[in-house]
């Protein structure tokens, strides 16, 4: 039974932005298509040559634009088309992820994975996994609220502190 058919009314549909490397995960997503493997339609893919080319700023921007969850996925360690791009990327996430967590952003909203060009099945599982997980977490309202520039910024700051209504 497909998830789409089972979709209850008014169910929250999380918005996921995926940053994929061209050589492994993007090809893996293609393979899922070739194999007609159905999965949830909540993800929007941004393709880059390599996960090593993903600046953490991309992730911040994605949240600013209203993403409820983010997927970053590339080649398995040792398989990088550019030898070491994914290793450098992994190092980046090793510090960036705890930083976001420290600032109160639920790390489950960002998922990192290695999906090879042969792993169409893993792609489907990963997408369904993150969509379900983020659906569980609900909309990323706290971040999305940051987007409103109220008429009184100072008043808003107070509101953000949660002390006044």
């Amino acid at each position, binding site marked *: 039974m497909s998830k789409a058919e089972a979709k209850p009314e008014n169910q929250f549909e999380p918005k996921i932005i995926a940053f994929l490397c061209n050589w492994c995960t993007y090809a893996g997503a293609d393979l899922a298509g070739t194999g007609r493997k159905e999965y949830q339609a909540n993800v929007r893919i941004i393709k880059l*040559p390599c996960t090593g*080319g993903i600046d953490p700023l991309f992730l911040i921007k994605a949240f600013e634009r209203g993403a409820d969850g983010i997927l970053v996925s590339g080649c398995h360690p040792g398989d990088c088309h550019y030898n070491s791009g994914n290793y450098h990327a992994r190092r980046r996430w090793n510090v960036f992820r705890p930083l976001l967590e420290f600032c109160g952003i639920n790390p489950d909203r960002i998922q990192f994975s290695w999906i090879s060009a042969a792993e169409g099945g893993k792609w489907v599982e990963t997408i369904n996994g993150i969509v379900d997980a983020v659906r569980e977490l609900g909309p990323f309202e706290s971040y999305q609220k940051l987007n409103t520039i109220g008429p009184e910024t100072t008043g808003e700051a107070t509101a953000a502190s949660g002390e006044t209504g």
Partner: protein
Amino acid sequence: MSKKIGVFVCHCGTNISATVDVEKVAEEAKKNNPGVSYTTTYKYMCSDPGQKLLRDKIKEEGLDGVVVAACSPKMHEHTFRNASKKAGMNPYHVEISNLREQCSWVHPDKPTGTEKSVDLVRMMTEKTRKDKSLNPIKVPVTRKALVIGGGIAGIQAALDIADAGHEVIMVEREPSIGGHMAQLSETFPTLDCSQCIMTPKMVELAQHENIKLYTWSEIESVDGYIGNFDIKIRMKARSVDLDLCTGCSSCWQVCPCKKIKSEFDMELGNRTAIYVPFPQAIPSKPVIDRENCILMKDARKRNIKPNDSKVCRKCLDSCPIAPVKAIDYNQVDEIVSEKVGAIIVATGYKELDDTSMYGEYGAGKYKDVITGLQFERLASASGPTEGEIQRPSDGKVPEIIVFIQCVGSRDPAKGCSYCSKTCCMYTAKHTMLYKHKVHDGHAFVFYIDIRCAGKDYEEFSMRAIEEEGATYLRGRVSRIYKKGEKLVVLGADTLTGSVVEIEADMVVLASAMKAQDDAEKFAQKLSIQYNKDKFLSEIHPKLKPVESSSAGIFLAGACQGPKDIPETVAQAGAAASKVLALLSADELEREPVVAKVDRLPAPIFSTCIGCFYCQRVCPYGAIEEEDIKARDGSTIKTVAKVNVGLCQGCGLCAATCRSKSVELAGFNDEQVFAEINSVEFN
């Protein structure tokens, strides 16, 4: 100025249109996007009429950007870019929305698929708005190749390239070319004499008008990039003038240092201090071993120039060349520069000689425990025993001989997990060579598995067992110890489950093929990758097996991993053909998806601050330092610069740069930003 973008939505028969309302996608693309000036749908965009439609509309509508919403860009990005190019549009203004593999095929619900498709098209339209014209990068090519290593791999590759009419520089660090193959006695599975097939090739190479040979030389440095490598070669002091010397042999006959272990004979024979490694050496001209020559030792000790030492001048005195002798004690290392367009690395392997690793086998302790290559020398007609199988300790012909396979291979406990691939075959060959020479002798072989997967290989090994009567025992040897004149081999026969004890006269270890000791350093010199065992890495194990991670550098032979001769020769030929393709034109064209460090007018010059993190992370050594100079010649600042010849377009530098001063063409900052920004979530 705003772009005029055309959006072409493909039905792909019904592959897309069955689950995506393509008309609606086209309509939506036009509706709310100021950049889109034309939209249409078509049954098969990739078909000839589809491509014609694209070309026609580019011209008619004056489009300067195109989004094709169709299958994966991996399928037809090229097709549509080429079509646009034909219509006079820069092909890098074409983007593909992947509506098939990543939407219609995976989302059967039509409204859902349509909604997602609208998004996907919008994202690509936004990216297209920021696309910039890119032109293929043209790199000049020096039509000359460098081959590093003069074993069979290097010789084969060099000959192939030279025969095709290109100049080849060959660099070999030993005094002679020939490599390991020249050391072998016979070769499997045909048992033809190694030197008989090797030496003609060596001579051919030496005499080839297109090949310049540097022996007793090493690579000092490699700079530059594909098509344009600058090579510095260190010609080590040979102490012999190669032009003058005729190779008459008088010098090495008079040399008083006669007890130096011969490397070529795997230390089973001796050589002199001035020597040629073996009679068929190319060049057949000697070199003075500066470590062992008594004159050189004296000069070193007294810190004087060698020629000022008078301890021994026998070789010089014996040299018949006049008026200037061919021997020059004072010769020093010389660095020569060469420019080449391509490089083949054929640096070969090294036989495992780390005896400490297998102390239980007594290698190094017991003279009669020898390695595979040593056995080759014993069996060779030109070897120290002239082909007689005699044990090193006392010259006795061994009546019982034990071969142990997988020494240093397939042994994760010792840190070497890989299979050396050749040992099963050469051990079988050794048992045969032994039986051919010692008719009543008995050969035992301890093995883990017998892996003989080449053409005629299985038959060959079965012959060793069935016809030549070698006894194969499946199991490992735990210990070897000396008992009188015998070596007691304690092993297990796992097929019968019994412990085997053999009193042998000689033991041959089928030692592993290892990477060269300096493989790691060497790879770093060339900025190519290597694996955990220090074997050099090909960029793709299946589809690019001879290409290294640096463009223009190719791999041949056992430097990449254990290989036998046929495989090595085949790979050398493959590497040569890659080089020939590269050298076939004066220029090569490369995809313009490369990084660029910004340059601005004075007084800023570049926002790069020169921290060179990009240089550190670049897998290709493609980031260079550039001094920005003032009019008076002083340096204002040093900033990064991308060498487009080396850059492979991964974007690692761009993501590492904190000030975003580096961008990757085709995925530049504005393009990625536009894509993220176009996701209309709220």
